[in-house]
């Protein structure tokens, strides 16, 4: 039957239903298992082959040699496109994706994250 107000029943039904939206940021969003979020670096596993630097489409990752078999890594979160190709390219699994996604910052240099060979993560001031 052709008539107007075809969706009216649906609309009225929805009054008694829970909202389809979530109350973000008050309720935290749950990310799927394969989510590609912030990349973290394990300095003890890195052998300095620099395959990640070669494959990064955005040029966001830098590996620097600082001593004998010691490497530090700098990731520019502003440049990173979160494709996780570096994680796939890494032969020794020194890079890993996390579910962290709230990475906005007010200053550009705070987006540069350096993973030192000895101390772990330090953000640049």
């Amino acid at each position, binding site marked *: 039957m*052709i*008539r107007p107000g075809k*969706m009216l029943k649906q609309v009225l039904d929805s009054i008694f239903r829970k909202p*389809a939206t979530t109350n973000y940021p008050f309720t935290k969003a749950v990310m799927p298992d*394969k989510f590609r979020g912030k990349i973290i670096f394990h300095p003890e596993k890195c052998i300095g082959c620099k395959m990640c630097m070669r*494959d990064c*489409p955005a040029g966001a990752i830098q590996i620097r040699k600082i001593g004998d078999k010691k490497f530090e890594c700098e990731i520019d979160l502003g440049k990173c496109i979160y494709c996780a*190709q570096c994680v796939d*390219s890494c032969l020794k699994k020194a890079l890993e994706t996390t579910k962290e996604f709230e990475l906005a910052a007010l200053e550009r240099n705070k987006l540069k994250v350096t993973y030192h060979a000895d101390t772990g993560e330090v953000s640049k001031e």
Partner: protein
Amino acid sequence: MHKVVIPIGPQHPALKEPESFSVTLSGEKIMKFSARLGYNHRGIEKACEERTYVQDVYLTERICGICSHSHSTCFTQAVEEIAKVDVPKRALYIRTLVGELERIHSHLLWLGVAGHEVGFDTLLMYTWRDREVVMDILAMLTGNRVNYGINMIGGVRRDVSAEQAKAILKAMDTLEERTKYYIQVATQETTLIQRLSGVGILSHKDALKLGAVGPTARASGVNRDVRRDDPYAAYSEVKFKVITDDHNDVYGRTLVRMGELLESYSIIRQIVKKMPEGPIITKVPRKIPAGEATSRYEAPRGEDMHYVKANGTEKPERVKVRAPTLANIQTVAKMLEDRQLADLPIVIAAIDPCFSCTDRLTGIRQTGKRKKNVLKWEELHTYSITFYKEHGIDFTDLNKKMAKALK
């Protein structure tokens, strides 16, 4: 009556993406419609030439936000053809699966946008709520909601587990039920039928003449679909109908898209059922041998085409992208001839345009002389420097820094 030329865009509330149009009006009637592409030009083709094939997969994925998988699959297919790689069967099935899921999300998105453009916002709210089901499935399969990053030259990056297959089938049942409801709405809701019927008419002859693709062409009775005519991935092993319609108007395009949704559900069920076991990726050398290939892909908006030329190094020599909107944008001028200005937003929206996909090349015209002048790369560089110097902006220091950083 006196003729008035009004510009629509690049920034305009009726457009979902910035693009420049100019409309010649006589009263409320459109006399002439012309599009000036180029506002969204990002230089992706040139950027592809300066990156390796592995990097280009992610770059081509970012040509379009909605049909990201289409572009990256099209590119990888071309590269695999040059390198003569045998892609594992399971990888082809996963590509098809993600491609069809993408079609579902794109068509549901379009239905909502079309509803919004004709003032039927209820439809927008409900279709977008249901679209979340397929977005969640995509996030579960690939990790992210858009820019799935599942393609790699030689296969795919992520496998589908048995539990995920079960979740996909369950989601398909929900979506099928909802789509059937929307088909009911579209065929029975009189406001929608009366607003869309007879708007944006494109005859069968014009569709063929102007080279329309995808649902725009199929709604004008052109029985053409790359998935059936030139099967890629796993499409040769699944059964599906190509939906066509002879309404020739926006209403017909709505019906075609909804029919395609139902076909997509059936394709996904077959894919999940038939998916063979085995590896999902083969190793491909970084250096691709010299050669060239053209690859076709049926994106949600129509036929997408990539041309890749390899020269034996790690980087391609040339990448050319022909997005479906470029083929369809010509038809909009035809559809709008002698029509009301109020029909413009829905007629443009009906081809499901993606302007950032379309903008590939910008021709730079010297203003005043009315003579076309193609500039070379170096000339463009010097032109830009002198242009900014004349306007009192000096980039000399910045250029030095850039040159240093590039070294």
